[in-house]
């Protein structure tokens, strides 16, 4: 029983929330207001070139302060690449697998569908797990032509996700894979897969709160 409890604690529902009728991924809400101002150059038309240059230096500093402190992760879903960067330096350049972009309609449930996209936007690492156990979501059973089990224990699948998993929200994870030959291709259900070595490096370089920028 204690073993099961430990297992459940480490278990994750990889991309389990894909069913939220996401028409195109599951982007985080964009909290910033769209900049709608249309003010044109000229409001400080009397400024000297020196003053304008000084203001530019200040603005550049302000912009630089918005960049992530420490390491951050960049995922290019078109080219299936994952980079770990610090300022402008690339610390790790890894081949990944990201979402396939395919659709699964739930059999017998009109209107219920899963869109297997990797979400785009800026996210944060929310969990760092070792020896994760995959909690198979409904779509994993339906895709195999099986019924969805009622016993939660039947959803647990250890060993599939590699040694580590980094959750970045809404059930999406960066994790390992048993199928290295598929790295570099858009084959996943939304999660980001890495080789064992690259996953270990990403785990080591990240912490809770590390930025994950996905485009």
């Amino acid at each position, binding site marked *: 029983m204690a073993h099961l409890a430990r297992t459940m604690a480490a278990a994750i529902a990889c991309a389990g929330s894909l069913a939220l009728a996401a028409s195109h991924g599951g982007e985080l809400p964009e909290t910033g207001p769209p900049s709608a101002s249309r003010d044109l150059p000229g409001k400080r038309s009397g400024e000297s*070139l020196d003053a304008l240059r000084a203001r530019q230096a200040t603005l550049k500093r302000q912009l630089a302060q918005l960049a*992530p402190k420490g390491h951050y992760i960049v995922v*290019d879903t078109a080219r299936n690449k994952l980079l770990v960067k610090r300022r402008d330096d690339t610390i790790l350049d890894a081949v990944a697998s990201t979402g396939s972009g395919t659709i699964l309609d739930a059999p017998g449930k009109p209107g219920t569908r899963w869109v297997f996209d990797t979400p785009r936007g800026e996210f944060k690492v929310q969990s760092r797990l070792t020896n994760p156990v995959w909690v198979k979501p409904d779509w994993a059973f339906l895709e195999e032509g099986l019924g969805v089990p009622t016993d939660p224990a039947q959803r647990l699948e250890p060993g599939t996700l590699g040694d580590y998993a980094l959750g970045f929200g809404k059930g999406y994870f960066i994790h390992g894979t048993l199928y290295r030959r598929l790295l570099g291709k858009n084959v996943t259900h939304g999660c980001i897969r890495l080789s064992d070595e690259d996953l270990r490096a990403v785990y080591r370089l990240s912490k809770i709160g590390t930025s994950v920028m996905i485009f």
Partner: protein
Amino acid sequence: MIRRTPLSGRILPAFLTLSLMLGAPLQASGPVPQPAGNDERSLVREANRVLEEEIKLAAAAQIYLLLDLSARSLRIKGRGIELHRIEVVSCDAAGNEESWGGAYRLKARPVVERPKVQPVPGKEQNQEPAEPINLNDMPAEYLLQFDPGLLVNVGPPVGEHPWLWAKNRLREGWRRLSAWTGGTSGTQPPRRVLRLTLSPDQARSLAWAVTDGMPLLIGSATAP
């Protein structure tokens, strides 16, 4: 009373579209307006304006686009960091707007057909899907509609891909005609039309990168 036959119903829009396609470039097409005066002060002032706008965008958790007219590049950015760069062959404006200042939000983009997964008994989760989407499935010419009132027409260089170019202009003409005649319900004619010439590869890359609501900032970001 005028009787409209099916044939005349097709010929008239086709004629108008062709006229728009051919006429619009001659009418009001040209380089995107740059800041008044090319003196150093104007250029720095314009770069500062872009920086001010970018700071607002970079303050939020989002990916945004920066079209740098002076560097002829379209940058995919987040938190002020350049994530990817798309090279722009040329950029022309069609319309009478004098300014492109401010940020826009993507309202409509090309629809990409997504393959459907067919449940297969005994299928392993990590098997390769039959037809995953990839970059080559993205279009090389298309329209992007932004709020407020901006239509971005992405197409290839006419000399290299004349057929794609013509198709692209026809699409733009049709869209503008539909908006003017009220054919597209609720759509106002765009006040600004930006023609972005990209290589097919770069155009596909942009089509992949854009997401609904994505902000676009236009300006000359590079000061001397």
